[in-house]
C-alpha cells in the first residue's frame, strides 16, 4: 500500500493575506498599549488611594501679627492634644521643618530664601484601619483649640484622582472595544474575500455533501491561526515597549515627572496575552459566522 495520510488542509495556502496580518498586528499593538495604560492607571489609582486613605493632615497657618513662632508652637500643641484625644486616631505628629522643606523643594527650590518664607506647620495623623472619624466635628474642635488650623482628610484629592484614573481606564476600554470591532470587521472582510477566492472549492465541497460546519472549520482554522500569530507579534512589541520603559526607570530616568511608572509588572505583562487570545476568539467567531452566512446563500 503506497497511499499516505490525507493532507489536513482543505483550503490551499492563502496568498496575499499579508496586509490582513499587518492590520491585525498593528491593532493588537494598539490594543496592548491601551490595556497596559488601563493597568497602569488602575495601579496608580490604587496606590494613591492606599497612600492617602486613613491619613489626615492638619495645617496651621502662621498668624500674620504678633509672635508667629510662639503662636504656631502653641496652636500646634493644642491641635496635637485634640488629635491624640480623638477616638480612632492612632498617631499624630508634627512634620519636621526639614521634611517640610523637602516637600516644597521641587517647586520652590531649597536655598536660604525659601527657609525665610512663613511656612505653615503640618501635622500628620493616622486613623486606625476600619475606624471612622467624624471629620466636620474634628475640624470644629481643632478650630476651637487652634484658630489657624485647617483639617484636610484628602477626600477631595482622592475623588479627583479616582475620576482621572476612571477616565483613563474607561477610555482604554473604549479603545479596546473599537479595536475589537475593527478586528471583527477586518476578519469578516478577509473571510468574504477568501470565500470569493475559493468559491470553486467551497462549491465543490458543498456539492459533495460537506456540512457547512466542515467548510466553516477550514476557514476558522486559517483565520484564527493567522490572527493569533499577527496579534501575538503586535502584543509582544507592546510588551517590549513596557519592559523598555521599566528599564529606563530602573536606570533612574523618569519618563514623565509626577506620573506613575510607565512600566508593567511581570503579572501585568502576562495580562497582555489576553490581546492575542481575544483577537483569536474574535477571528474564530467572525470567520465562522461569515462563512455560515455565505453558505446559507448557496442552495
Amino acid at each position, binding site marked *: *500500500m*503506497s*497511499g*499516505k*495520510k490525507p*493532507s489536513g488542509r482543505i483550503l490551499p495556502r492563502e496568498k496575499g493575506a499579508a496586509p490582513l496580518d499587518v492590520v491585525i498586528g498593528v491593532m493588537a499593538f494598539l490594543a496592548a498599549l491601551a490595556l497596559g495604560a488601563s493597568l497602569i492607571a488602575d495601579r496608580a489609582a490604587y496606590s494613591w488611594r492606599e497612600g492617602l486613605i486613613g491619613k489626615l493632615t492638619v495645617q496651621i497657618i502662621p498668624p500674620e501679627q504678633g509672635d508667629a513662632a510662639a503662636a504656631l508652637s502653641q496652636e500646634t500643641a493644642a491641635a496635637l492634644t485634640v488629635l491624640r484625644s480623638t477616638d480612632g486616631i492612632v498617631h499624630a505628629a508634627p512634620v519636621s521643618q526639614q521634611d517640610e522643606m523637602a516637600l516644597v523643594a521641587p517647586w520652590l527650590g531649597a536655598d536660604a530664601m525659601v527657609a525665610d518664607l512663613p511656612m505653615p506647620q503640618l501635622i500628620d495623623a493616622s486613623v486606625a484601619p476600619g475606624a471612622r472619624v467624624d471629620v466636620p466635628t474634628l475640624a470644629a474642635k481643632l478650630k476651637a483649640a487652634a484658630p489657624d488650623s485647617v483639617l484636610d482628610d484628602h477626600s477631595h484629592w482622592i475623588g479627583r484622582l479616582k475620576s482621572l484614573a476612571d477616565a483613563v481606564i474607561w477610555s482604554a476600554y473604549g479603545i479596546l472595544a473599537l479595536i475589537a470591532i475593527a478586528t471583527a470587521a477586518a476578519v469578516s472582510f478577509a473571510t468574504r474575500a477568501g470565500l470569493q477566492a475559493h468559491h470553486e472549492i467551497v462549491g465543490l465541497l458543498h456539492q*459533495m*455533501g460537506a*456540512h457547512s460546519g466542515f467548510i466553516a472549520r477550514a476557514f476558522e482554522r486559517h483565520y484564527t491561526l493567522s490572527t493569533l500569530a499577527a496579534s501575538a507579534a503586535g502584543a509582544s512589541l507592546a510588551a517590549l515597549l513596557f519592559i523598555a520603559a521599566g528599564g529606563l526607570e530602573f536606570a533612574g530616568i523618569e519618563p514623565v515627572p509626577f506620573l506613575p511608572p510607565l512600566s508593567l509588572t511581570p503579572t501585568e505583562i502576562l495580562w497582555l496575552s489576553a490581546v492575542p487570545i481575544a483577537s483569536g476568539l474574535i477571528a474564530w467567531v467572525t470567520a465562522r459566522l461569515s462563512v455560515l452566512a455565505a453558505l446559507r446563500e448557496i442552495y
Partner: protein
Amino acid sequence: MVRFENVGMRYGPGPEVLRDVTFVLEAGSFTFLTGPSGAGKTTLMKLMLLAEPPSRGLITLFGNDLAVTRRARFPELRRRIGVVFQDFRLLDHLSAFDNVALPLRLAGKRAEDYEQDVAELLTWVGLGDRMQSRPPTLSGGEQQRVAIARAVVGRPDLLLADEPTGNVDSEIGQRLIRLFAELNRLGTTVLIATHDRSLIESTRAREMRLVEGRLVELRARA
C-alpha cells in the same frame, strides 16, 4: 430512487432550459442520458445532484420530496450521490490520493480505515504510480480517472457522470464502463450523460434523450 414530475427549469428571466421533464430512475438501474449540446443534460444533472432548485415541478430523491425536505438534510442526501463532472473539478492543491479520499473524509471516516481502499482504487484505474501527483501535473485522461475514482470510492447510491469517457482512449473507456457496471451490479443506480454512441451500443441499458429541453425515451430498460 429518482423521480421527476413535470420539472421545468429556467435561469433568471431566460427561456426554459428544461420543460415538463418527467421520468423515474429505479433503484439499481443503469441509464444513458443523451442529446445534442445545449439540450439541457448538464442542467438536468445539476437538478439531480441538488446544485440548483427547479423552477417548477416535483423532484423526489431517495424518497424525499425536495420541495418539503429541510435544507439541513441536503448534505446527507448529497453524500449518497457520486458525481463525475465534465470539467472534473479536482482540487489542484491536493494529491490524486487526497482528491479521491475527499468523499470519505467528508463522511467522517478515519484515514486508516480508507487508506487501502483509495490506493487500490487508484491502482485499478491505472494511477497506482501517480497517487501523490497533483492534478495540474496529470494529463486530461488521468484527471478524468481521478474524478471517476472520487465519484465511486464511497460506493454511492446514485452515480451521475457527465461525459466520463470523453478524454480517455477506448481501452480505458471500456475499463471505466466495466467499473460503472460493477458498481451498478452492487446496487448503485447509474446515470451517464454521453455523446459516445459506441459506449451506449456496448450495453443494453436504457437511453433517455433530451431534445430542446424535453425528454424523449429512446430505449427502455433491458
